[in-house]
């Protein structure tokens, strides 16, 4: 028999096991507020640090890209979550429909956020706004050649359009707004025509589409507005500056309904253990100070009126006409939009 001692290894594993089980972090007893977030923590960090500084309330956070609503639902009255943060209207509406949200009862918040970016029933609020715009190649697309989402269906764009998956929430929201404005039949005809014009199978994220324009794979691309700022100022990966510099920004439908808007938003849960602190945090996030940080750090549009926009946004995105259609109604078409994407084989 070979003599091979496995003792050291087993010991390491055993110590690890014990330590892991006893290292359960204890919830602090100080004033705190707990966030379940669908937005990445690093985007929120500067704001949460400023909040802690100001109020001495601790902020705890869990970030995940899915499943948090289900977690709140199953945790029921014992859920530790006070606030649900999202990067899209969809999950807010979803949580509302499952009766997981409380009414946000704050005159201050109502004054800070325009009605267009708030739920009619007061269960959720927008924190930042973004527009889904069209990036066009500086070299290959002349000014005035296209001016609306509808124009993308024109056969002159055949083989020239890039976009991420039709199933991504940003595109579902855009398709939802087409359904809301034009009805399902016209929206589907439009989507089918856009699909026929795609330069490649939908893939990658919004930045990757601008990159594809830079590389000549396509001439126009759909993308959220703030990515432009993020690319133009990217010192760690300077090639992204070249991508941004190769495109013009087009805010569509300025002659009629305006460019499609979406929000990142927040809500207070129905069983929030710290509802007061949660309200304080939302009041802070809609304050001038926080709204300015949002605009500067992530190049999103503040929802609060009168907040100075970052210089970069002013230079490139100036003033534009935003679609003021009810976001609740747009979100209600989400499932229909997803099925439409399947039917026209948009992602195939």
């Amino acid at each position, binding site marked *: 028999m070979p003599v091979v001692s496995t003792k050291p290894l087993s010991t390491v594993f055993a110590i690890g096991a014990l330590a892991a089980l006893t290292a359960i972090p204890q919830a602090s007893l100080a004033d705190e507020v707990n966030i379940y977030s669908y937005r990445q923590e690093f985007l929120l960090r500067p704001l949460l640090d400023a909040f802690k500084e100001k109020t001495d309330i601790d902020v705890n956070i869990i970030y995940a890209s899915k*499943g948090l609503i289900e977690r709140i639902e199953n945790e029921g009255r014992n859920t530790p979550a006070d606030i649900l943060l999202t990067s899209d209207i969809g999950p807010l509406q979803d949580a509302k429909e499952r009766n997981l949200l409380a009414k946000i009862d704050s005159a201050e918040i109502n004054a800070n956020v325009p009605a267009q970016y708030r739920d009619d029933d007061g269960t959720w609020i927008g924190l930042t706004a973004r527009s889904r715009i069209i990036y066009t190649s500086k070299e290959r697309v002349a000014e005035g050649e296209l001016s609306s989402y509808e124009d993308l269906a024109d056969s002159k764009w055949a083989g020239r359009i890039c976009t991420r998956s039709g199933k991504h929430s940003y595109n579902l929201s855009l398709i939802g707004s087409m359904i809301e404005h034009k009805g399902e039949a016209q929206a589907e005809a439009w989507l089918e025509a856009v699909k026929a014009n795609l330069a490649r199978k939908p893939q990658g994220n919004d930045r990757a589409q601008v990159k594809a324009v830079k590389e000549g794979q396509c001439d126009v691309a759909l993308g959220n507005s703030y990515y432009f700022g993020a690319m133009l100022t990217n010192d760690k990966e300077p090639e992204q500056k070249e991508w941004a510099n190769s495109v013009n920004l087009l805010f569509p439908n300025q002659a009629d309904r305006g460019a499609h808007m979406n929000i990142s938003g927040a809500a207070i849960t129905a069983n929030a253990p710290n509802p007061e602190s949660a309200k304080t945090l939302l009041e802070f996030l809609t304050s001038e100070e926080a709204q300015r940080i949002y605009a500067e750090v992530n190049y999103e549009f503040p929802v609060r009126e009168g907040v100075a926009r970052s210089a970069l946004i002013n230079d490139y995105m100036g003033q534009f006409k935003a679609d003021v259609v009810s976001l609740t109604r747009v979100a209600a078409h989400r499932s229909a939009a997803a099925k439409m994407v399947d039917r026209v084989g948009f992602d195939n």
Partner: protein
Amino acid sequence: MQTVEPQLTTQSQAVRTAGLRLPSNWTTLGWLVAVLVILPIAAVVWLAFNPSENIWPHLISSVLPVYVESTLLLLLGVGTLSLFIGVSTAWVVTLCNFPGRKVFEWALLLPFAIPAYVIAYIYTDLLEYAGPVQSGLRELFGWSTARDYSFPEIRSLGGAVLMLSLVLYPYVYLLARSSFLEQSINIRDASRTLGCSAWQSFFRISLPIARPAIAVGLALVAMETLNDFGTVDFFAVKSLSAGIYDAWLNMSNLGAAAQIATLMMLFVVLFIWLERTSRAKAKQFSGADRFKRLERYNLTGGKAVAATLLCSAPVLFGFLLPLGELGSMTLNHLDQFSDSRFLQQASNSFLLSSAAAIFTAILALLLAYSQRLNPNLAGLRFAAKLAHLGYALPGAVLAIGVIIPFAAFDNTLDSWMRDTFDISTGLLLSGTPFAILFAYSVRFLAVSSGSIESSLAKVTPSMDMASRSLGANSFDTLKRVHLPLIRTGLLTALLVVFVDSMKELPATLILRPFNFDTLATAVYQFASDEKIEAAAPGSLLIVLVGIIPVILLSRTITATRDAS
């Protein structure tokens, strides 16, 4: 002596008699483990009965054919490639002598430490239009746009097959190699004496004997391919797991998502059943002669070169190249290492993964041993098979399956405590590291069991008989006879679950407590935004921490045979 023979009546009788003394304890324990592990799987099946609308007419009339076709092609591609790489390299390093053999023995396991989503990002970076490879070619040949030449698209089904195979073949390699190592040298010598060539001996003796182990490896590869979402999503391949997430998140129909997931599990059951049926009742046990020194074929000249190339390719493309890329990306982000959270994340990953490795191995051992003592309990055997299905579920779906029973337990206990004692116990299990640990165990039980069961099955029942007739009880027999004999399988189980847990992402994200990060979740924050470079230091650490046990354990496995 090693024998290949139909199930011996003496064996089942012996074991049955041996088991009769304390059947109830082990049976109860086996059932307890099985039920515990099946709970989250059952929760998913339960969800499948509550869809918000019937999604099938829509699916069948639109994308279902696409989902099914891509999934089958993925399975076929990844299965074939992993089988070829895994078995050929395992056989060569185990039974041949050639330059670098000792290094390849453990190096061939290294790609396993690299998460599939990371390798997908890296190769896309290298091979896409703007990447160095295509840019270089354009410069070299004076092409200016994509229309001037054709280059295979990395973001495709073929690309996904390559990426998944590169990191999954080690499952097959590991199990095939353990099996080749444990095979009796006498039987091979006998076949050679009887006139078989080395190749014939491989195909007619070694391969059939190793088949159960290889099948286990292949089943693991298939399940991992089915549950993968990160890679296929990044490569825009519409597989069934894409359909699951679409129904859940975009159509707000978790029930329909659970239906697709349940269907996937049924496929796995069918696959495993087919494999087992075709293998019929052949069983092999090995005796003490496995410790006889292995005589290797000495390869020279062209054959040696071929063997070296065969083994270097997967190591180069599956490990060295991605590692080098990660390393050079990390140079731009060295500041991350000085972040104190980074150390915390690394330690969370390490502790959780170690705990999961041990916990899962214990569950797997209890299940396997309770079945060995009661081979005629069909119910228990069936439950044990069901308990393996957690591996076929996409991680996020499994996480919901864990949340449901845990939260139900917590809330029921809390209500009862409030009513009876006016005390609120709140959430005891939900949102703790234990929930993550449990999810890892459910997810990776199939991995752990695969290795432990096949080792245990090779221990001849005469060992049980001897031990029991000498007065040892069933627990002593397990401790003093079986554990030492199946040490290789046990270590393999620990190693694989440890590394798999280090890489696990979707379930960890959803189940974790507040302010709790592992390396994988920290990496994901950046990767989800396609900030691949910022994700490099964390990814590099996952890989580095992962390779330490890989090397250590691989050496131990080798030592079980070589030290004589």
